[in-house]
């Protein structure tokens, strides 16, 4: 019985899961303390509101509809976190997912609103735009040795201003928002295939949600089961060794960033082509979706399938934050909690290391106790 427990704790997936749960718990706990400090009266209620999200509604139909809303925003988040994860596996830190998401939104929305192209072309445009921006970072990294983190950040801001200017051409006359997608170009909206009916007629629930899950599986297959994935990971581990083995490390770097960019760009299409949100052309900061993607990727233990769960969780608390009592707290409290969770994810490695050392010591003591006469055998426990 105990032997079995040891082997279970040694399992990497179990350790990751434990670590992630610990991050979540600690993040929520610190968030709760922050709420208590701001205003002790409503703190417990606020934190339960954040955790409950759509379940704060009493009617099942409304609950279902709001679950749909959360899922609609989970799809782009999942794509962004896959983008971060994919690049990270190949040794690159894609903080530019935010910018790639922005250009994806720009390209997709412009194709839809200005030219009324069908949805699959708009989707393609988003993917290509994101991939192109990712490739720029990759090129700079491969040929000019520019740290991808810095170049990505610069590109984030450049793309924000560029997209604001571009989408200014297709905005509503009286507001800073882009034209309503469903009215202007219904053919550009992602098809629902009857999925909306499942969520009490939520018209924003489209194929985007199953599509993003499929992509997560595809990324997993690509990374774990193909030669390309192996090469990309090898380049990430040690680019000199990869080069020595005959892999083209420059090409791999660029390709990695292009694929990562494409994933983030597609994420934007999966949100904006549902018509759920309109782009605000006066936006002065890069949308948080890409940055939350980092949180989801690390919280998911850098596993494509784990990120499905973690993306949902992050989006769940982000949406939940919108329901807190605005007279006491701000909606940013959920940003605060997810930022805390990312910070805590930095300690995962240490957690695993400590856990493994503890297990090693326990085993050692046990074998010693078994070999010699067990005088202090019980001490290990």
């Amino acid at each position: 019985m105990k032997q079995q427990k040891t082997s279970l704790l040694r399992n990497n997936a179990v350790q990751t899961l434990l670590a992630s749960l610990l991050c979540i718990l600690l993040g929520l706990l610190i968030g709760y303390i922050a709420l208590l400090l701001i205003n002790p009266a409503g703190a417990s209620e606020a934190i339960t509101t954040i955790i409950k999200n759509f379940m704060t509604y009493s009617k099942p139909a409304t609950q279902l509809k709001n679950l749909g809303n959360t899922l609609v925003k989970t799809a782009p988040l999942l794509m962004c976190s896959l983008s971060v994860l994919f690049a990270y596996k190949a040794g690159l830190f894609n903080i530019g997912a935010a910018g790639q998401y922005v250009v994806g939104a720009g390209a997709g929305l412009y194709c839809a609103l200005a030219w009324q192209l069908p949805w699959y072309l708009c989707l393609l445009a988003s993917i290509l735009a994101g991939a192109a921006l990712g490739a720029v970072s990759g090129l700079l990294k491969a040929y000019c040795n520019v740290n991808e983190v810095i170049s990505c950040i610069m590109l984030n801001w450049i793309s924000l201003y560029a997209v604001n200017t571009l989408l200014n051409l297709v905005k509503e006359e009286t507001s800073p928002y882009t034209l309503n997608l469903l009215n202007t170009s219904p053919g550009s909206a992602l098809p629902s295939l009857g999925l909306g009916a499942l969520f009490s007629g939520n018209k924003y629930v489209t194929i985007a949600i199953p599509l993003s899950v499929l992509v997560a599986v595809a990324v997993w297959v690509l990374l774990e089961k193909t030669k390309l994935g192996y090469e990309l990971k090898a380049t990430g581990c040690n680019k000199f060794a990869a080069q020595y083995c005959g892999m083209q490390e420059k090409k791999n770097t660029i390709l990695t960033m292009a694929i990562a960019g494409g994933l983030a760009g597609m994420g934007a299409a999966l949100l904006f082509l549902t018509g759920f949100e309109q782009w605000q052309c006066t936006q002065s900061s890069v949308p948080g979706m890409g940055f939350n993607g980092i949180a989801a990727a690390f919280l998911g233990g850098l596993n494509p399938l784990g990120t499905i769960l973690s993306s949902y969780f992050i989006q769940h608390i982000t949406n939940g934050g919108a329901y807190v009592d605005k007279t006491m707290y701000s909606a940013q409290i959920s940003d605060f909690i997810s930022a805390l969770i990312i910070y805590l994810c930095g300690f995962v490695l240490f957690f695993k290391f400590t856990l493994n050392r503890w297990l090693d010591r326990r085993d050692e003591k046990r074998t010693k106790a078994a070999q010699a006469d067990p005088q202090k055998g019980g001490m290990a426990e």
Partner: protein
Amino acid sequence: MILLLQYMLIFASVLMLVALGGCFSEHSGVINIGLEGIMVMGALGGALMMKFLPAGVPAVAIILLVVLASILLGMLYSLLLAVAAINFKADQTLVGTAMNLLGTAAATVFVKAMNTAEDVDNVSSIIQYIGPKRAFLVNIGSFEFNWFMLLALIALVVSYVTLYKTRFGLRLMACGEHPQAADSVGINVYRMRYAGVLISGMLGGLGGIVYITAGVSEWKFENGVAGFGFLALAVMIFGQWKPSRIALAALLFGFFRALGNVYTGFDFLKAMNLPAAVYNMLPYIISLVVLAFTSKKSRAPKAEGIPYDKGQR
């Protein structure tokens, strides 16, 4: 023209302070991507001090107290990076990114809570500091001299002397180049790295308050510091981790950033009729181009970003 010079100098001061901060941290071997978050925290400290100082405090005291508050909060916040990166060997890029997000989120939550507590209808994340801000300004003709410019200059000279002429600075740099070797001659690598990160917190925090007081007299904390921390990192790389070159790089970047604020004052620029977005993008584009040309022969500290492990060969 004078306005351009004024903005250029103040933005250059911000970039110089923050880049020097990054320089200390990286020379000790810790990559500090979290400068942006540190700036926000420093700005928050300074802004709060300005908000709550009673009227009638002499200008010198205002300056000292505001600077002190910014530095203190910046250093406290940088401890998050120091603890995670030095004691717990965490991924420095990840922790830095988290700090950037956390800085803006925490500042927004805090300021909003404070504003709503004062007035239930006020849900903004704005702090105003019109009055106390005047303490920092001295008018010389039409040129508005800001004491922060002098402060940045002092920081530059002190950084140069500290890094190259003192035992502490040379030891700090040794820890970023080859920590094992430094340890073998009795230098405490962990302590040096703590010092490096804390100094970056100090200068970053100071840079934060300079940035938010640069052009405006109120600040919306939801916006963070608009990528200035990263711009400072670009300045640092362009400056090849050397204080003197960082100063020149900061002036160059400050110029392009200032252009965005004052380009309408130049007839030939106005005549070109470019959208404002172009000027907003300019500093970022320039820094990308510059980085593309200078990163090839980068002289980054050799051991930066690698957690120090005593037992490693």
